């Protein structure tokens, strides 16, 4: 079980037996992506949903795998990106300071004053979740939201 924050409230994310595989990244790491592509459910681009048991162990902990959780009746894939609304320039600086000193190396890929887009250097969605939660716990910007791809029943 993991979590994130929405509207200041903690939201639980239940673990699943699935993982989202970026086939391009997996191929760049030398993995044979043909069976993964055959087994996987296409999501978006080259991202496929695969049972964790079907993924070669060589990809564990790499940017090829993004975590999949269950929440609110949907599956949620955590992508390696965090959007931040600081609320003030002082808070924005506090955000920069926090991620600069934090345990997860982060690239600031967009910085428009109090609006920022962060990307964990690892390329892992799990790290994006940690960065967002760290910012919420330590700094408290208006928003620090990891990027989710959600899969819901068709309306």
């Amino acid at each position, binding site marked *: 079980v993991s979590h994130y*924050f*929405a*509207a200041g*409230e903690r*939201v639980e*994310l239940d673990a699943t037996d699935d993982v989202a595989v970026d086939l391009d990244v997996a191929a760049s790491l030398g993995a044979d992506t043909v069976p993964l592509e055959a087994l996987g*459910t*296409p*999501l*978006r681009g080259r991202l496929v949903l695969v049972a964790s048991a079907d993924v070669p162990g060589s990809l564990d902990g790499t940017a090829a795998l993004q975590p999949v959780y*269950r*929440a*609110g*009746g*949907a*599956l*949620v894939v955590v*992508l390696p*990106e965090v*959007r931040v*609304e600081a609320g003030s320039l002082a808070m924005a600086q506090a955000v920069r300071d926090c991620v600069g000193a934090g345990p997860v190396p982060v690239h600031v890929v967009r910085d428009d004053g109090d609006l920022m887009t962060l990307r964990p250097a690892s390329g892992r969605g799990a790290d994006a979740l940690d960065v967002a939660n760290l910012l919420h716990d330590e700094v408290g910007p*208006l*928003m*620090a*939201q990891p*990027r*989710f*791809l*959600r*899969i*819901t*029943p*068709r*309306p």
Partner: protein
Amino acid sequence: MRVLEYYVGGTLHRLRLRSASRMAAPVPASGQKSGPPGRLLGELQGQSRVQAVTALPDGKPGSSVAATNRYGTQAVVPTESVAVDGSRVAEVTWARKRFGLVVVREGRQGKVLLQAPPDTPDPLAVAALASRELVERGKVGAAHPNFLRVVTRPAASMVSVHDQWALDNAGRPGVTGADVHALAAWTVTIGSPSVRIAVLDEGVDSSHPLLKDAVVAELDVVDGHTHARPDGNDAHGTACAGIVAAQGDDLRGLAPGCRLVAARIAKSGSDDSWIFDDFDTADAIDWAWDDAAADVLSNSWGGGPPVDVIIRAFARARAKGRKGKGSVVVVAAGNEQAPVGFPGNLQGILTVGASNQWDERKTKTSKDGEDWWGSNHGPSLDVMAPGVAIRTTDIAGGKGYARGDVTNRFNGTSSATPFVAAACGLVLSVNGTLGEAKVREIVAHSADRITGGTKHSNLVGWGRLNAYAAVRAARRG
């Protein structure tokens, strides 16, 4: 006569089984001739190994899963499989050892389908017994025999192909006047071309002959196309757009004079799912109220956990849209006959449930016969609108809901939502000075009460949309 026992919600249900030779012929779908029961079972057997038995309701309350409605009787065919929800590996292992069940499929959300071994003399009994014991052990969320259902559709002949009952209900079927009062509203306005209504969905067929003149802006955040037309069979957004602003002689949206903004935010997955990216969705919301200057945002989507990017994008639309007067955000309540989920449970939006031709809250047992869905409920529910057998635009050609460019069978709170969005468009067409909160108040409080009460109800909100009353109230300011 055999009886099959299984648990639903912790209560033991009994289903009486009858042999196929004694089974009444199922009511056929409209336009089809009734075939003999044997043929029907043969077709079912092609899908799953089914014994030559079927079940009909015995009429005793709580003793059967089958139901009778005004359109006929459903047949329920038990299989030798057991559907388990919230399963644990240990329980599956136990069932395998105890009954010889094998896993034939793993579904989403922890569902597992187990099957009795083929050499079992009475696999139906084994499946039923296994399901009961799994429940009684208390370590699974649910377990019951897996049923095939022969569900009859509402008789289409009762709904004229030219009938837009939601706009003007003549009571064939239903209750005369159980509609949004479109004809009366159109005596005041059909909508102003200066009012823009955004449909955020799986794309809109912006080349559709009944929509193309209305569409003034398009965005695709899914594939980055320069248009918002959908892929493949994705017809949901086109149907929603038609309810808002279709411009035809035989098919009209509720606000045919307003303009459409089309934002493609989702696409279908391979398993009847919807896939969308929260950041892209939030960007589409911001684009709609900001770049495309949409006055109203119609959102026939939802599900999953809340996220700040979408919450805050909606908040910006309400605060900054329409040059500070606020764009109106309209969201579907959902179709699970369950509490309203995200984003319909947010404050400051119009959350829309579905009603039927009888002015009932759409439920799995309402008179319309669509027993596979019901409108969601809760304190955030604001207003109801028609959501059954809705005639609207379909993606052109053989794809989509129907073979032509129009469907008569769009449904769900997905269809109710654009009616309310269109009514907001009419309101703003007669009084563009209104703030978004006032528009929401007018639309909700001018609704026709459909439960007899005068207060808000968690089941039907303030009642069923009355577009005429709304535009009259808007004139008064």
